[in-house]
Each structure stands twice: as structure tokens, then as C-alpha cells.
């Protein structure tokens, strides 16, 4: 695959979405409201499965935040690593929501909140520091797969 074959995304968009992925689950944890976790997980899963057009947080960013704050387009980045990262977040949040909805308290609920807090922490790093851990994992997996393919 050459760089010209790759779908791209405005680098500001994943960071803006990461803000939503941080704040809503964090609020869910503070208020102990698992529906907020489920809502974020479903929105992320929809964005990954149906495409960026159906990304709720992406639309909020493009249609409201960009004109309101007059945000200039940023540099372009490959879409695939961010999509992988979002898929990982969606899996964690949906698993968390299932555990929290199924078991209101106990060890399972503890695991559920831990999964949510992992997403909160990683999304916060992406939002505030611009460091996408999921994208790094995607790069590592791509490297491993390319080196395996050559053996």
C-alpha cells in the first residue's frame, strides 16, 4: 500500500472526538450513570461501523464547534489508525456498559468502571496531549504483521 491509497482525516477531528470520549464517560463515572457509558460506546461503534458520516461527535464538531470557534483545518492524517483506536474504545465502553447494566454492584461492576476509566484516560491523552495510544498500537500491529508476512 502506498501513501496515496490511504483515506485521510483532518487531525483536529479525532482530537475533538477524544474530548467527547473523555468527558461523557467521566461524567458517567462521577454520576454513576451507566447509560452515559453505553451512549458513548454506541456512538463510537456507529462511527466505526457505518463510517465517519454517521459519527455523532464528528458531526457535532464539524457543524457546531468549527463554525462557533472558527477552527482552521489541521494537517491530514491516515484514518485507519484512528478508526482502530475508536473501535477499541467502543469495545471497552460497550463491555463496560453490559457489565454495569447486568451487575449493579460487586466485582463485575468494578471491572466495568475500570474499563470506562481506561477509555477516559487514553482519550484524555489524545485530546490534551495529541498522543493517540490506539494509533501506536495499530502501527505496532501493522509492523508485526508485515514482518510475519516476510518470514
Amino acid at each position, binding site marked *: 500500500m502506498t*501513501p496515496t491509497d490511504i483515506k485521510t482525516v483532518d487531525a483536529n477531528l479525532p482530537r475533538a472526538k477524544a474530548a467527547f470520549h473523555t468527558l461523557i464517560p*467521566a461524567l458517567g463515572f*462521577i454520576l454513576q450513570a451507566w447509560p452515559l457509558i453505553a451512549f458513548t460506546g454506541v456512538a463510537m461503534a456507529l462511527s466505526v461501523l457505518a463510517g465517519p458520516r454517521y459519527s455523532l461527535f464528528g458531526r457535532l464538531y464539524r457543524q457546531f464547534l468549527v463554525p462557533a470557534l472558527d477552527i482552521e483545518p489541521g494537517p491530514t492524517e*491516515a484514518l485507519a489508525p484512528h478508526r482502530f483506536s475508536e473501535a477499541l474504545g467502543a469495545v471497552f465502553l460497550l463491555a463496560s456498559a453490559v457489565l454495569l447494566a447486568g451487575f449493579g454492584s460487586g466485582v463485575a461492576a468494578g471491572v466495568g468502571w475500570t474499563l470506562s476509566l481506561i477509555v477516559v484516560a*487514553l482519550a484524555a*491523552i489524545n485530546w490534551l*496531549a495529541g498522543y493517540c495510544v490506539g494509533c501506536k498500537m495499530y502501527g505496532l500491529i501493522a*509492523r508485526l504483521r*508485515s514482518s510475519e508476512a516476510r518470514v
Partner: protein
Amino acid sequence: MSGALIRIVVVVGVIAIAFASTKLLKAWSERGPLPTRFDLADAGLEGNRTAIVEFSGPYCYECKEILPLLKAAAKVHSSGFALIDTHQRPDIASKYNVRSTPTVLVVSGDGRVKRVWQGSPEEAELDRALSPRRKLKVA
């Protein structure tokens, strides 16, 4: 209410720990000395002339953006040029401690690394590294 306060502290603490871990991870991933020698054969280059070597990756747009500059510089200075994809050749990337893309080397004909950039080189810096006497003009 106190429960909510505790949870706010937990959220802030988790984010702070994640930040500290990221800093450590970045420092760890950028460890190791920069290369001082480069075997031109690793880049498929032969001969005794100076060469520009760019370490690139399929998702690195900066790498693609600086390609015309690097190629023009190599042409003007009659130097060799090689592009190494770190995903295709992770063995070469790890051999020379390349941790980020783009990484650009200017290597003399005897294999001595004259200059390393972890990021994009400036046109004038590249010009100086290749030949202190000649000015590079890129159309």
C-alpha cells in the same frame, strides 16, 4: 455528595497517571543513540558518493511531503537517495535506532553519518550537510 467528590478525584488521578505514563513511554520509545555509521548497502546504494536516506512509513504524510525536497537535493548535489519503509524493513529501522518517521540521514561515501534529522530537515540545513559551498534551489 462525598462519593461524587471522591469519584472526581479518581478521574483526575487516573488522567494524571496516564499522562505521566505517556511521558515515560515516549522517553523510553525515543531511547538509544542516533546512528553515527550507516552501511549504504542496507539502503541498496553503492559507490563512494554522499547519500540521503529517508526512513518513512505508509501513514507518514510528512515523509511524503519532504520527498520532493530530498530528491531535488540529491539531484543538485549528485548524491544518492534511498527511501526505506520502516514497516517493510523494521530490521533496518531497529538496526539504526530509528524510532520515528520521518528520520533523514545524510551519509558520506565512507558510511559516516554527517547529519540526522528526526523530523523534516530545513532546505538550508540539508544544503549545508550535503555541501557547504553550494546553494540548493528547489523549484
